[in-house]
């Protein structure tokens, strides 16, 4: 038998496929397109992240700093932004970045035909209205907006917007079709085998923005330390696990139930990193039963958040009852306040609200990378203790999105992807339900506070707004926030560095031993 195995190994080695050494990262699906900020999802954003850069980028703690820009100056009235570009930036085709390139990109993004995801954020229909952009010299440009905004730069840096990445006009063919992104990022476009993988190649001429030698969100040191990166589309979790164990994969997101197994694994290291995303119970405040604040409050009082979070996250998460991330510069002591577990008070609140055992359904999905279902199960058990008649309805994700968008739900066990500024996070939940049925909370005071947070640029004044907002949320209980999302990744022990940030793959400043 041993001879057969040995012979097999020799034969297969002889036939073996020579593989170029690059970082091989698993993604749950193929990318949707290679056009920044257009037809995108999280996996697409991760690839684009390595190819393009915007004028500004987020730091680890949610601050916004220059990226392609060397400096950003805001006029006293807050209406004119002057960006001075770094002079050492080159596109992947070797051409130098100029202010005219930025103007061309902005006009392209704002053209209706481009179908940019974030166009509405800058044309005045949502947050900001940009009235003009102008290159004043080869390295300087100005942008004008109609009203002061605290989130203008932050909006531009979002992954969903393709980071408002600046690409060379050569990325577009003469007939207007998009060829491939020729950006300024640390990796350049290589090859896309649809349904299989995307390959990026190290950009040898890349120069990092000013830094202290460490990566810092989208800015900081961004050296490409490997020859390339391959984003492999592997939908099956078991295959991902086998890929990591065999060394075929260098890094991949894994589910929380693999934490115990990978903790002391000889070949695989475990990487756990908190991000700004949220896990919460999203409540329909217009539902006949849940429109009573007492019932919503009783639901929150029934939950032992410490136990729930420990169970659901396999010990990786920490309770955060706020919409503001624990890693944000705005995560103050006020944000830590939560509704404490009190079963007797919950029962009293239910009685006072006239609750008579009407069914309450929590919608959940069973996607492996989010705790939607386990959170619903644990919450159901805890809520039943106080007499809440809670049921769970498991749906596929597409149907869940449909139900949330139409407002036809009572409670959804929901995970929300990271938004680095608290005001942007608020916009996912807060606003008029008459205009947008998917929103969770339409308290006029909350809407007013959110709008103030959009405008106010002063950090201490914003802090006061966020704190007031949190207090109001604890009073009104439009949703129950559980904990910040955790990126749980497995990686080869040959890999050095952290290949994930805010749920995005990030492999600059990541190296691989031979």
């Amino acid at each position: 038998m041993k001879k057969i195995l040995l012979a097999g190994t020799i034969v297969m080695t002889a036939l073996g496929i020579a593989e170029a050494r690059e970082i091989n990262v698993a993604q749950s699906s193929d990318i949707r397109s290679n056009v920044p900020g257009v037809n995108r999802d999280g996996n697409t954003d991760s690839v684009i992240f390595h190819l393009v850069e915007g004028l500004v980028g987020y730091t680890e703690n949610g601050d916004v700093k220059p990226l392609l820009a060397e400096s950003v100056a805001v006029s006293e009235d807050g209406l004119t932004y002057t960006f001075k570009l770094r002079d050492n930036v080159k596109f992947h085709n070797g051409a130098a970045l100029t202010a005219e390139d930025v103007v061309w990109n902005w006009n392209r993004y704002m053209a209706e035909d481009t179908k940019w995801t974030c166009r509405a954020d800058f044309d005045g229909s949502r947050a900001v209205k940009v009235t003009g952009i102008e290159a004043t010299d080869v390295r300087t440009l100005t942008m004008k907006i109609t009203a002061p905004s605290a989130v203008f730069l932050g909006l531009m840096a979002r992954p969903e917007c393709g980071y408002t990445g600046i690409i060379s006009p050569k990325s577009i063919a003469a007939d207007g079709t998009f060829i491939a992104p020729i950006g300024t990022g640390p990796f350049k476009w290589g090859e896309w085998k649809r349904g299989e993988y995307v390959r990026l190649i190290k950009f040898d001429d890349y120069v990092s923005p000013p830094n202290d030698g460490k990566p810092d969100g989208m800015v900081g040191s961004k050296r490409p330390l490997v020859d390339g990166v391959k984003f492999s589309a592997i939908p099956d979790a078991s295959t991902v696990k086998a890929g990591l164990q065999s060394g075929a994969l260098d890094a991949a997101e894994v589910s929380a139930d693999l934490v115990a197994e990978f903790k002391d694994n000889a070949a695989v290291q475990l990487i756990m990193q908190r991000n700004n995303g949220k896990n919460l119970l999203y409540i329909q405040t217009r539902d006949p039963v849940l429109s009573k604040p007492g019932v919503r409050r009783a639901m929150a009082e029934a939950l032992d958040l410490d136990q729930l979070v420990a169970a659901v996250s396999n010990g990786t998460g920490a309770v955060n009852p706020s919409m503001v991330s624990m890693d944000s510069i705005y995560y103050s002591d006020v944000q830590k306040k939560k509704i404490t577990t009190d079963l007797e008070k919950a029962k009293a609140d239910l009685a006072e609200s006239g609750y008579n055992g009407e069914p309450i359904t929590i919608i959940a999905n069973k996607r492996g990378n989010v705790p939607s279902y386990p959170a619903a199960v644990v919450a159901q058990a805890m809520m039943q203790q106080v007499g809440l008649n809670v049921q769970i309805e498991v749906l596929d994700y597409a149907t869940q999105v449909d139900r949330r968008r139409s407002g036809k739900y009572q409670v959804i066990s929901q995970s929300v992807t990271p938004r680095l500024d608290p005001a942007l996070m608020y916009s996912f939940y807060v606003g008029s339900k008459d205009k947008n049925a998917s929103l969770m909370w339409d308290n006029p005071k909350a809407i007013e506070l959110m709008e103030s947070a959009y405008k106010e640029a002063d950090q201490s004044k914003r802090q006061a707004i966020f704190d007031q907002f949190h207090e109001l949320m604890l009073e009104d209980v439009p949703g129950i926030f559980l904990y910040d999302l955790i990126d749980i990744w497995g990686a080869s022990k040959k890999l050095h560095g952290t290949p994930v940030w805010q749920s995005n793959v990030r492999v600059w400043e990541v190296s691989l031993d031979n």
Partner: protein
Amino acid sequence: MLKFILSRMLMAVPTIVIVAITVFTLIRLIPGDPAALMLGDLAEPQQVAALRSSLGLDQSIPVQFMIWAGNLFSGDFGKSIVTGEPVLHLVLSRFAISAQIVVLAVFIASLVAVPAGVIAAWKQNSLTDLALVGTATVLLSIPTFWLGLLLLLFFGLKLGWVPVLGYVSVTTDWKAGLIYMALPVATLFIHEMGVLIRMARASTLEVLRLDYITHARAKGLSEQAVLWRHAFKNAFGPTWTMIGLILGNLLGGIAVIETVFSIPGLGRLLVDSIFQRDYPVIQGCLLLVAFAYVLVNLMVDLLYPLFDPRVTAE
């Protein structure tokens, strides 16, 4: 013969039309909006409505169907909502990948299983028969996803003989392609072999009981001649039909195998498209599956006279 082929193709038309109408209607009755999924969390209701309108999803289902059916006649299967790729090219390229695996697996399974089934029938109630039937039953009972994972873990992870993930087309690099195909083909081969052994055994047993076999033996023909010249030819017909059905079924999608081995085949495309509510791709996949099923069974029928002279194409 040509008349037979044409009449069979014409008979397939109502089947394809029924499949087209059913798929088109049912997929639109499932909750979930492709426009909302495409635009993501950020989208305002107006943006979703605008995208729905540009995709034609705001029209009534009958109107949408008529537009789609009209385009089909001019060879336009539409474009993927998610990637914008032309559907026909997309599904054909993915189908080619699935077909390589399926055809190879079924071919090898037939080569092994049919003689094994005949031998089991010939040696009925012997230890050989018991072993073959037992093996076939066990193989039949193992779910393919589990078998695939076991093979992956043993040959890929433990022994390191084959890559645990990835795919290389045999047309790009035949050597690498064969290595990457080894485990998915083996998984399908092992599973389908069980079905075919049992089928070949049952039909051979039936033939061996007939009078003309007794007559052949009485004439003094050797057992080998009786078995392969007289019994096998008549017994192979039902097995051949079964091979056709298996081929048709598997060509329709081996999504589980493709997911386990990360193969970008038709089955995985179909499953991904269902999750993303990519209507044109789902429709294209299922139409192709229905067409492949009809075509495979037509070919089975056309080849039937080769094995059973009593049957003619006419």
